[in-house]
């Protein structure tokens, strides 16, 4: 589905990625792990065309996308839940969803507002609230829901549960599990290893702008030393 080969990226003159290889299989849930500042968000920005690559190739279903502008990459079917403040605070919840509604990838049964709200039912009560009137958890659910509204081939979540109370976090994991069962391809970045071990199929660990380890959930679960060395858990 999505494949990165030897991707190198820089912020100005300082290089942040040093040849990243990454592959997302169709319908799989893949993680990108690593401590703070290791380059996970930079990988996401590179995929989304928000950062010019210095070298390397990024392919979505065989098609090179690394030179396309962000909006064109989104139109090819990559849905992003960005790091940080994610929603449009000056649009209502409904508008946040409506603005994204599209079926760029030509899904046969595209997500509609009803589908998305059925995955995150808590959002239904707050349709006419502005983004900045929502709680942190609601905002994050909305960000996931909004990314789904473009009916992405690949959904990317960058720290979507950061700073959330455990119950609300669980709500997001529940949502992702539903998506996974539907066959959605997902790339997830998160610090909650336990939840990821349950949901994800493949894991990649990043250190200093490189992928230093890849493997399955059972391999990672068994390897406590690796977990503590690279992830600090």
């Amino acid at each position, binding site marked *: 589905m999505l494949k990165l080969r030897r991707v190198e990226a820089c912020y100005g003159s300082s290089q942040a990625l040093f040849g990243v290889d990454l592959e997302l299989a169709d319908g799989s849930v893949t993680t990108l792990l690593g401590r703070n500042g290791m380059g996970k968000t930079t990988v996401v920005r590179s995929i*989304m065309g*928000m950062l010019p690559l210095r070298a390397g190739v990024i392919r979505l279903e065989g098609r090179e996308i690394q030179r396309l*502008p*962000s*909006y064109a*990459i*989104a*139109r090819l079917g990559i849905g*992003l839940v*960005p790091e940080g*403040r*994610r929603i*449009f*605070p*000056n*649009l209502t919840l409904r*508008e*946040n969803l*409506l*603005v*994204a509604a*599209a079926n*760029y990838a030509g899904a046969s049964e595209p997500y509609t507002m009803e589908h998305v709200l059925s995955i995150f039912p808590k959002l239904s009560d707050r349709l006419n609230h*502005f*983004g*900045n*009137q929502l709680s942190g958890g609601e905002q994050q659910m909305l960000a996931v829901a*909004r990314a789904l509204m*473009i009916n992405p081939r690949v959904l990317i979540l960058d720290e979507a549960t950061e700073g959330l109370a455990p119950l609300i976090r669980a709500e997001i994991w529940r949502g992702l599990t539903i998506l996974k069962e539907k066959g959605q391809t997902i790339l997830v970045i998160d610090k909650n290893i336990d939840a990821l071990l349950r949901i994800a199929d493949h894991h990649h660990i990043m250190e200093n702008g490189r992928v230093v380890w890849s493997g399955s959930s059972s391999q990672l679960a068994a390897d406590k030393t690796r977990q503590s060395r690279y992830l600090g858990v």
Partner: protein
Amino acid sequence: MSFSPFRRRLVLGTGLTILLLLPAMASFAGDPYLITLFSRILIYALAAVSLDLIIGYGGMVSLGHAAFVGIGAYVVGILSFHVQDGSLLLSWPFELQASDAALLVWPAAVLISALMAVLIGSVSLRTSGLQFIMITLAFAQMLFYLAVSLEAYGGDDGISIWSRNRLPLVDLSDDSSFYYICLVCLLVFLYLSHRLVFSRFGRVVRGAKQNELRMQSLGFPTYRYKLVCFSIAGAGGGLAGVLIANQNEFVSPGLLHWTHSGELIVMVLLGGMGTLFGPVFGAAALLLMEELLSAYTEHWMVFLGPFLILVVLFAKRGIYGWLSGAGGNHA
């Protein structure tokens, strides 16, 4: 929006009623000058609403909006000059006769303003923030000096227009008729703007104001959306210019001056940025203040400063937000 819907309707309904009945009230009060004053308010309201589209909704703070007002006005002025003169508007590459028919002149003026906005916008919108303010200002001042240098069209002194444009069935030289034409223009522009702001296009522009990258990552080439929004605002400014030229029967470079752009911004701020109806109240407040205070002192602007500060401090969404009871926490 956290406006109280009832109060909002009341405020808008009252405002509309006053505007609809104004010519009758003016003749009842025996003061026909009120019609002229309120025509002016309507025209400036139109310009301010169009500016609110880009400032309030698009976050594009332009300090050059008067340029489009001026362009619209100059199209009327130049054409009327040639009609009066009997000379051709254009003799090369083809011969073109000037016209004073509103149905030709007005759409042409609006179109030219919109095209100029595309031109200016396509450069300016590559920047943002302070740079955008400066570059729109620079473009407007360039056009101002261009107008000053148009010796054939009066240069500094501008162009006197011998008669207002002709419209079938309506006599524009009659001040009441002209007033209602201005009102129709304003209401139509408000209606279209309202539709635009709450359409998908409007959502993209409003969202991009908060975070452009995020909007791009949803699949929208935000630059193009902003450019279209900018040129629609330019068209609105151009229409206001057309009406100003007709009302004053005179156009001069002053229309394009940056202080004129500044006045439009003040109207938007006073009335309530990002509210669409607010700038109408802002235009009314500013022009009425000017009218009342300038009777007592030529330094009426001195009072404007403190008033503006009070409004900005205590009425977050301007006069309109205050009247209609807007809540505070809207971005």
